[in-house]
């Protein structure tokens, strides 16, 4: 066993042996170079899947050992929650939408005695395909909705078809008992090219604005498909990011054409591909999902407080991955992100994605994560948690109990931590503080 200090020393030793830019890269991913945060009392919140239901499990230490769902967990009424975790206030928000039915959202906090407690139930009537935190709210959005007038009648387009350019947001107030407010805006011609948009990702700028990636498309074909809320992509070689204020007023649009749109697609979901580094810079990724796009998957930067993309920054990630494209992006620490990459070079709607890598955006480096199960052995992964400069990543491998793998971003190496017996998967891990 190598302890934390040893690993740090080891990484520094390797770093010293490399060229200057490489050592900068490691330094950028190494949380220990920053001010260490005092650890607040709290617990890890795990959502685990059983064969017949979803369960909530409280764990003190995900670094090692085993936990069992039998007798230690709470059964949820519904299963299939998407969990997201906020730092301040420290809450877990469970989002759910079930085909054709509204869902019951859940809010969890840690009580003074350290126990997990359900602190709110709210109804989510709209679908959501993207989510995140902004100000005091958990925010969700879904595009492709049919806007209505005051009488509840659908607004029609020139051809007499119901419009599908509405985006519905849910504002879930974390400081007011998880009260939920729904707001709908229309997106027709939002970028000035006559098309509509679906939003992907929510990044709090900290100044009363949030950023969201735009998937700009033609209207959804009213007679054919429905799974996605966007229609045909006319401009697959362009990227747009919108800045909204808390009243959903459009402040500005960041636009560029060095990468394709910023969104990871799977079924009806639009996974966030934008994230904020510790220094406040926002990295806008594009997994280049559209087969019609000529742009390799890569990233641009919006420097802290800037009103346009940084023209000097471009990171061709595809070049570094050997042609593999990514679907999901999570911030770890500093300017380091964990990427989930497709297993095959060709991207398809049903494509499997169980390969992982760490990208250091400031140094423009990429490393495959080692120490996790092989890509053809991973049957499921869950939402990871960045904590203490490391990534706690739930992975279920074939014939094994689901486990938390702890990824050190500097070396892109992982060690296996806690296993959960009796579970078929771990949906999410997050740390909640009192």
């Amino acid at each position, binding site marked *: 066993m190598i302890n934390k200090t040893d690993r740090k020393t080891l990484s520094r030793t390797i770093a010293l042996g490399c060229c200057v830019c490489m050592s900068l890269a490691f330094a950028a991913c190494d949380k220990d170079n920053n001010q260490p945060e005092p650890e607040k009392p709290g617990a890890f919140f795990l959502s685990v899947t059983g064969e017949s239901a979803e369960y909530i499990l409280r764990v003190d230490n995900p670094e090692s050992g085993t936990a069992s769902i039998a007798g230690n967990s709470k059964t949820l009424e519904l299963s299939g929650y998407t969990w997201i975790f906020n730092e301040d206030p420290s809450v877990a928000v469970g989002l759910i939408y079930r085909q054709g*039915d*509204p869902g019951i959202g859940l809010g969890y906090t840690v009580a003074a005695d350290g126990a997990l407690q359900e602190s709110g139930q709210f109804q989510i009537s709209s679908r959501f395909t993207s989510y995140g935190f902004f100000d005091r709210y958990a925010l969700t959005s879904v595009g492709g909705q049919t806007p209505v007038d005051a009488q509840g009648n659908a607004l029609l387009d020139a051809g007499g078809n119901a419009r599908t350019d509405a985006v519905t947001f849910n504002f879930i107030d974390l400081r007011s008992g998880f009260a939920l407010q729904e707001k709908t805006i229309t997106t027709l011609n939002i970028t000035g090219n006559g098309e509509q948009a679906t939003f992907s990702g929510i990044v709090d700028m900290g100044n009363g604005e949030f950023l969201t990636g735009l998937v700009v498309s033609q209207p959804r074909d009213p007679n054919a498909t429905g799974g996605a809320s966007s229609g045909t992509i006319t401009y697959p070689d362009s990227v747009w990011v919108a800045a909204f204020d808390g009243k959903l007023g459009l402040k500005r649009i960041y636009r560029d054409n060095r990468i394709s749109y910023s969104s990871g697609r799977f079924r009806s979901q639009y996974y966030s591909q934008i994230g904020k580094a510790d220094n406040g810079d926002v990295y806008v990724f594009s997994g280049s999902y559209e087969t019609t796009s000529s742009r390799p998957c890569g990233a641009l930067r919006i420097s802290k407080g800037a009103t346009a993309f940084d023209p000097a920054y471009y990171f061709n990630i595809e070049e570094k991955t050997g042609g593999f494209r990514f679907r999901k992006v999570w911030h770890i620490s500093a300017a380091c992100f964990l990427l989930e990459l497709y297993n095959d070079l060709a991207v398809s709607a049903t494509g499997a994605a169980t390969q992982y890598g760490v990208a250091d955006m400031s140094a423009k480096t990429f490393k495959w994560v080692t120490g996790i199960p092989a890509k053809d052995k991973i049957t499921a992964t869950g939402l990871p948690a960045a904590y203490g400069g490391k990534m706690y990543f739930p992975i279920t491998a074939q014939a094994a109990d689901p486990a938390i793998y702890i990824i050190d971003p500097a070396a892109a190496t992982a060690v296996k931590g806690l296993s959960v017996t009796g579970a078929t998967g771990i949906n999410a891990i997050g740390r909640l503080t009192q």
Partner: protein
Amino acid sequence: MHLSGKFLCLLMLLPATVCANAQSLGGTVTDCEGRQPLAGVSVRIAGTSGGTATDANGQYHIGNIGAGLHTLEFSFVGMASVRKEVKAERGRQSVLNVCMDEGALGLGEIVVAAKSPVQHVRETSFNVIALDAKVLHNTSLDLSHALDRISGVKLRETGGMGSNAQISLNGFSGRHVKVFMDGLPMEGFGSSFRLNNIPVQLADRIEVYKGVIPVELGADALGGAINIVTSHRRRTYVDASYSYGSFNTHKSNLSVGLAAKNGFFVRFNAYQNYSDNSYRVKTRLLNLETNSYSAEEYWFRRFHDNYHNEAVVVKAGVAEKPWADRLQFEFTVSREKQDIQNANLMKIVYGGRERSGRSLIPGITYEKRNLLVENLNLRLAANAGLARNNNTDTLARQYNWRGEYRAKGFKGEGQYAMGEYDNRNATLAANLHYRPAEKHHFALNNLLGGFSRKATDAAANSETSTAATFMRRTNLKNVSGLSYRFEPSGYWNAAAFCKRYDVMVRGPINVSATSTASYEEQERTFGTNGYGLAATYRPTASLQLKASYEKAYRLPSENELFGDESLETGDAALRPENSHNLNLNVSYDRSFGKVHSVYLDAGLIYRDTRDYIRRQIEQRYGGAYYTNHGRVRNYGIDLEARYFYGRRFSVGGNFTYQDIRNMERYGIGGRELIYYKDRMPNVPYLFGNVDANYNLHDCFGKGNALSFGYNMRYVHSFFRDWESEGGDIIIPRQLSHDLDVLYSLRDGRYNIGLEVRNVADEMLYDNYSLQKPGRSFLIKARCFLYKQ
């Protein structure tokens, strides 16, 4: 027009010389009205343990009988029993032909008549329960609630009238239990004509085959089959009823039959059900300002749960022609409309969602006995089901349980839908029965069914729909069966059968390797063989033993073979789900003196079910796929006991315990499962019914009767999820009591009844969170007139 009550008539008593040596008795039993032979009639020699049953041609034979006078007792489901003396002449076969008449209003040996369904059951070697539906014709029950009173059967409802109703048979449900009407599958009949909205008056008899299904019902059903047998008797009658009850519930039923001497007959049946289902439920309240749920639960009255359905069934044809013993054309038209009040969690409430359905079912039946050769009988039946279903969710509103709402920025309370789905089904069943010699019976059955389905609306299911959703898909299934029964005497018989299942599906499949789906039509076929055995032995007249076994199969559905055309992949290499189904039954039926009689029945069941077809999602493969995985074992016992005190009083009950456990030790990936040997979740495993009846005959006048009935339903609590996973959600114990009073005038011609359901106003749940109605009252009037 002279109308009269029950009738018995003796046709002929013809001694005949057939063969030498020992003397024997034999003859044919027919129904007095239609002169149709009656199969399965119990024939007993009074005072002895000897007896037999009539075969498919209504013939019976009792060999090696002592010379001299004997009394034979004939009894049959729904028929008044006949008791007749016959003289067995030394060294000869004496013939006694008998006709039987409908016994619902019978005044004869009521002790026997009340037990007649039971006796019918006893004559077959299958584990089958036949419920005489006619004794329930004065109630307001639908078919599913009648089934709920049968041992081993559990009805699970999500609410009041018209709500989702699932029948579970020995723990099997859904596509593992097939439902037939007169031998044809009801799958294609549409939701407007199904078990939970058809009044019990439409049925003569309900047969429940547990685990082992005779070849005459062609189906790939793992768990068993239910056959609703409608009236086939030709007679002239009018049966009209109307009931009104709590929650603004109205039900009416009109049934008219005409039978002409030249063999022409018509039966017309029309019924309607209507209810506001405005019962009270206890649940959490949504605050429309904050979209948060109250921590407390409150009582609310349901405000958007109106249900109504209407149906007309017409049957017409001719009988007893040289070219056809029966040729019948039938036509069923039905429709329904349902408001949807809540999601499958009660606290999620709707104020505008609704669903409707309609269906047309034309059909034809042809029967010919002694086709070309003696004792070769043919039955052909065919029907088509044209069903259309609509789902509507268009309001841009969100409701709470107070009936208040707020406006929303987009359409659809749940998901904007104006979905319309068309299902077209056709079924052709052919049955040949041949008895080349005494004791040998052959049956050959073939059932060919096909359906096509098409969605016609884009807004529906937008979460999952793809271009392929709107492409047609078809499914053709053929089940053929051959059986041989050896029936050497009335004491024992044994049957063996084999079945062949084939399915051919055609539909769209995603052949794209890129982010844009691309569909092409493909065809896949699948086939397998099954077999079974059944035998019965009666050591004494009171005691019967039965054993039956079947290797049963369920073929993969089109989704399982094809995937969902978007992100699931089908698998043509799937094995069918299969099950070893074994039944052992012991029954005892005996009278003591003139008035006391008892009936006891114990059924042991064993089911070993494997290769469940399961949908699996694995990230390493991208989408979902189907695989065979899982083994479930069930040891169960069904008990039934009944006591009769003449016609005056009866009490009885049934009890079911089933130990249904997961026997799959390892998960699909090879990991040991924590719920190995766990009881299957969300399946009732301990339940029963008790009922009692007290009748006062000739009350306030001769031919008038007053009866009091009681029915109790019990379901033990069960876990919703795997117990070993630490599931802490249970479906609570249910105990409910129903009472009814019926006053019948003039031998049952005029009836008025009062029913109280759930007398104690218990909170009842068949499914997690979905509360069923509390106490309700219902009054029913019925008039039943018929021509002698």
